[in-house]
């Protein structure tokens, strides 16, 4: 058996007084990472490659011998692996700190049509959950609203920030529409079988959304009065903002996409899409990218292939769809750090390993329209990347030695690593 070398073998004993990790300063020195396997993020790799970072950007990339610039700092990463920072999509980290404690919940707004609601306002850049993602290579996240038919807009954030303004990379980049559910779950406490039932209000809810969008479209700046929710939707109508359609079942997906297109909302991203494999030609024809439900979920119906959740990525990719991974689900915030392993699980069931990396790097960046800055090891893009001792999609080798966000060498300590070290120190005193 291959022995794994632990980079973090020495415990350091100093503790900062606050629980949160201090954001790293702006990149001042130029950095050369040498001799690593570079996972570009577009499905390709460069063996024994080197990478130059300056002023927060990637300035040079190639085989170790092809590097020409001079760098003030050099990192020998021989035998290690460099990846673009992983990107968590459809995430709610920083919006709820502790599930059971209601005061820490800033996600559950009330109302049905809330296009003017913006997640970035409540995003807690100092969340202990947020910092826990970084040691696993997740350096960027899309923070989405989750309540209401139209839930509001999401923002893409980087995960090493002093405050929400500091964190925002692309503010209000998408509007989130949660399509009415065509089925509902029976409630055992009301004496119902825990089966799925037809959701009787489905048609009514679709009509309500239809009426709302029609009304919102009449919005004009030419009057004295400004309807804030309607105003908030204009970016979606004029194509400046993407529309994220949250839908799982076949009927929802088909109805939702046709409906949105009818309303002139053409930049559609499908989120969830558990039945997407049943309507691949339709999705391909309409070029709908999919943020596919995480593989760590159970099949939706009794007769499904029990491995279907694991195979979805392969099925969708083979059909030529651009996909990334939806991190939402049970215990979604604390599990967001398992994003690399979601990708790895998809790889175990048919997706090429580098394509699996691409899913949570370049594809995610494309879907979020931030591929000009993020998603691949490409000259000119942000130096948001990390170095791992091995395959970052595998738990055993997802061990980071360095991580950079916009060229800033971020801390990989967390509230959790501190407790680890503190108690190992306690026990070592005996």
């Amino acid at each position: 058996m291959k022995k794994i070398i632990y980079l973090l073998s020495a415990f350091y004993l100093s503790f900062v007084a606050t629980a949160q990790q201090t954001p790293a300063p702006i990149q001042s020195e130029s950095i050369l990472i040498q001799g690593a396997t570079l996972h570009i993020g577009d499905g390709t790799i460069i063996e024994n490659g080197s990478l130059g970072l300056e002023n927060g950007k990637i300035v040079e990339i190639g085989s170790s011998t092809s590097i020409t610039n001079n760098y003030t700092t050099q990192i020998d990463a021989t035998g290690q692996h460099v990846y673009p920072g992983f990107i968590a999509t459809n995430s709610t980290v920083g919006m709820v700190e502790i599930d059971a404690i209601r005061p820490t919940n800033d996600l559950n707004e009330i109302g049905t049509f809330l296009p003017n609601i913006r997640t970035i306002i409540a995003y807690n850049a100092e969340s202990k959950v947020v910092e826990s993602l970084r040691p696993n290579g997740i350096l960027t996240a899309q923070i989405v609203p989750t309540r209401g038919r139209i839930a509001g807009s999401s923002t893409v954030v980087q995960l090493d920030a002093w405050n929400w303004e500091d964190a925002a990379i692309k503010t209000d980049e998408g509007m989130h529409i949660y399509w009415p559910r065509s089925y509902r779950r029976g409630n055992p406490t009301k004496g119902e079988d825990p089966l799925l039932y037809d959701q009787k209000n489905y048609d009514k809810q679709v009509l309500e959304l239809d009426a709302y969008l029609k009304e919102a479209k009449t919005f004009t700046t030419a009057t004295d009065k400004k309807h804030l929710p309607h105003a908030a939707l204009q970016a979606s109508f004029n194509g400046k903002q993407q529309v994220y359609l949250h839908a799982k079942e076949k009927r929802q997906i088909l109805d939702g996409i046709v409906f949105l297109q009818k309303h002139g909302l053409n930049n559609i991203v499908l989120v969830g899409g558990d039945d997407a494999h049943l309507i691949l030609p339709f999705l391909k024809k309409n070029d709908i990218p999919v943020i596919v439900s995480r593989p760590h979920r159970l099949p939706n119906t009794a007769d499904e292939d029990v491995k279907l959740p694991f195979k979805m990525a392969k099925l969708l990719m083979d059909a030529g769809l651009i996909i990334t991974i939806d991190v939402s689900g049970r215990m979604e915030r604390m599990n967001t750090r398992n994003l690399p392993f979601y990708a790895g699980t998809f790889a175990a069931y048919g997706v090429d390993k580098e394509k699996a990396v691409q899913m949570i790097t370049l594809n995610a960046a494309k879907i979020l329209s931030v591929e000009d800055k993020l998603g691949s090891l490409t000259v000119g893009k942000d130096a948001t990347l990390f170095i791992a001792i091995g395959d970052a999609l595998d738990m055993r080798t997802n061990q980071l030695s360095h991580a950079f966000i916009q060229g800033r060498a971020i801390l990989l300590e967390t509230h959790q690593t501190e407790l680890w070290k503190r108690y190992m120190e306690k026990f070592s005193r005996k």
Partner: protein
Amino acid sequence: MKIRLLLLFFAVSIIGFSQDYFPTNTSVKTSASHYQAITNATLHPAPNQQINVGTILFKNSTIVAVGENIRIPENTLIHDYSGKHIYASFVELHSNFGIKSGVADGRRGRSTQYDTKREGYYWNDHILSDYNGIIDYSYDKATAKQLRNAGFGVVNSHRTEGIHRGTSVFVALNDNDNDAIRLLDERAAQHLSFTKSKQSAQYYPGSIMGAMALLRQFFHDADWYKKGGASNKDLAIEAFNVNKKLPAFFEARNKLDVARAAKIGKEFGIPLTITASGKEYEHIENLKALNAALLVPVNFPNGYDVTDPVSTQKIALSDMRYWNQAPMNPAVIAKGGIPFAFTSNGLSKKTTFLANVKKAVKYGLDKEKALAALTTTPARLLGKQAIVGQLKKPAMANFIVTNGPLFDASSKIEENWVQGRQYKIITSPEVTFDGKYTLMLDGKELSLVIKNSDSKIAATVKKDSIKLSTKATYKSGWMSLQIQNEAKDAYAQLSAKISEASHIEGEGTSFDGNSIRWMAHFNEATKDKKKTKKESNQPSPVAVTYPNNGFGFSSLPTAQNTLFKNATVWTNEAEGILENADVWVENGKIKAVGQNLTAPGAIEIDATGKHLTSGVIDEHSHIGASSINEGGHNSSAEVTIEDVINPDDINLYHNLSGGVTTLQILHGSANPIGGRSAIIKPRWGEDADGLLYKGAAPFIKFALGENVKQSNWSSYARFPQTRMGVEQVFVDYFQRAKEYQTAWKKYNTLGRKTKAKTLAPRYDLEMETLVEILEGKRFISCHSYVQSEINMLMKVAERFGVTINTFTHILEGYKVADKMKEHGVGGSTFSDWWAYKFEVNDAIPYNGAIMHSQGVTVAFNSDDSEMSRRLNQEAAKAVKYGGVSEEDAWKFVTLNPAKLMHIDDQVGSVKVGKSADLVLWNNHPMSIYAVAEKTMIEGVFYYELDRATAHVEKIQQERNQLIQQMVEAKNGGAPTQKTPKKQAREFHCETLD
């Protein structure tokens, strides 16, 4: 007794059955004493008897003689029933006929009711053994008619409220006499169920296992009370003890509950008749062993409306199969040799009862057995075989008259006689005048075609070839016709008293309003166009699988002697990881581990490039159970998950697909002292008992912290609400258990004579369990989070000489790992869960590694039906977080949980002599790319990846086949139902039942 006096006035007594000592004010008091006889009919006195031409002689409500050559006394009213068949009227055992249902407790408010509100009765409001149906009974004519029309002559009726429901009334469905005559037994039977009464909001029992424990404790208490153990008055127990010998009926709601009820009946020696679920065909053999009788419904499900393929996709194959297979249920039960009676309970329309019984016959139920299930068997199950169920002296004159053999497709129940009273169901016209006539009207010749059957009539009138709109009615021998003229501006109204079919003549008004006399001449009979339907072949339902869902086996798999060749074997033993090794499995055990093994007769599996490990063991799971929490009290040591195993849970199959071969199904964390665990192996296809890990050490769940304090939901009524109170619950229970133990010890050491004279202490299921803990015979797995409570429980345990076996969750175990090591407790934790509530704020993924480093036996568990199928990935997180070696990390999900569960002598490693619970992986088992290809339990391949993939194809084929059948059925006019979509329910620690 509230029999209304008014009823006496309504009872129109023409013949007047004798109420000898009653005065009469409406007439003279002399009474008739004649006989009645049914003659020339084909009699079916009992299911196995037939008299082709026979007589039934009866007087008032009682049969005097039945046979071929019966001497008929002079004073006999004779009914010639030649051509008819006569059977005993049916016996309905399950009904709430005439008994008004309880009134729901309408209380509002946020605090849960934990205690009883009744005074002087048992401590649980759902034990209503003191209730007698007669209290609220009032004869219900409308329902009586429905039941009578379905063929029933008598009904056993109870109030369907509560776990013990008290007694029933037994009533003849005789409208024409009063309750003095038709009330046959005011305490006929006792009734039980697992369902709480809506009359009380008392929370306990909050689960099916709680209901089972409650019944057990109640039976023990009743016995102890009878012996004089109690100093208080308990009317519920007293009533139970009085009614104990009555026949006992149990209403079960599903297949698993049937077996559970039967199990309790067997334990306490109570012969039960249990309401069948309709799915007994799924595990008939196992049911037979439980020695219960069944009350079988015939409410076969309608097919689904499959017109919408999107919705259809959501219907589970198992539900489609239910539609396809359900009608064979009675036949399978009969062939299984289980005594059973039919019930119309559950049918939305009682009129479909006989048709559904016929359907069961068509699906292979023997006719004689079908008849017995309608008559003699229910009579016997109620202990009333002397008076109902057969045509014999001196039974009641309850019989049905049919137009042919009962189970023939065209046969109908024409009359139902109850207590010698005739009730006509189908009134045939006295004269049949089907045919083609020439109708003379206003001097014009019209053609008239009449069709009449039963009491209905239809007529067509044509002038030449033009059809005239016509309405026909027939009542009390009079036919009337309303005919519209060609111009549609006038009607002719005709009527005639029909006396002979060949010539109809009557009065009426013509189209122009004149009074006329009209007549119709018979020409010829109408030809019956309906060809007799081809007797379709006996239906062949799709095959039942084990379990009976899409992924079931077509027959139960058996152990195979197997040789795995050339694998990388993770032994979990001193040998470590062996490359290119062979593992030989024989008779479910590991026979040899080594190189170049040969195993004659064994199937050989080339495992080159693959990894073979022992099966994954999940110390903390909530799958495969019908309930998880009994939170009705702060201790529920009396309940056991072993009572509520659900072997059909698809999650068991999911677990197999992830290499899981043993699980501990723990009670939830609703209370400090939870219920007892079930240790199971996911033997897919076996029944509930077949899943239990035989000989496993017994466990119980304890819990600490926010859940038991009910911190995260609005519940303020139950002690304890703080960690201080939690400690006291344990101290209190252990103290009482100690005292209980002493009391029994003292009693058991008495000399034989003194013992006989001394009353034994009260038998307490909860205390029995706690004594097992004190005696080291039962182990504790305790849900725990923060260090203070972990420390607390160890200290409390130590005071009572107990060692906590396992802390589960134990997310702050890393803070007290040294103390844990000292106490000798293991830690079964999550790899990386945290932040879901306040007490996991300091939960860290390094927890496992730290505890491991301090010598604590560490396992990773799932507590989650999704995670449990990829515990191999979770184990790898011990490598990532804290740098545990790969071999040790793998033990976190195999050998270490086996140690914590005291089964490491049998499972948990690849060692000669241990159970062959093995998993073949396509990769390093902790690699993210690892997929389990084969999962073996004791030599049986319960899961194979390629077979599972093929299964998906098979499911699709069978679905298509059944969808086709449903489309045909719908097009043939069969009713359909909306689609329910099956989705397994997930249980977690916090699920409230």
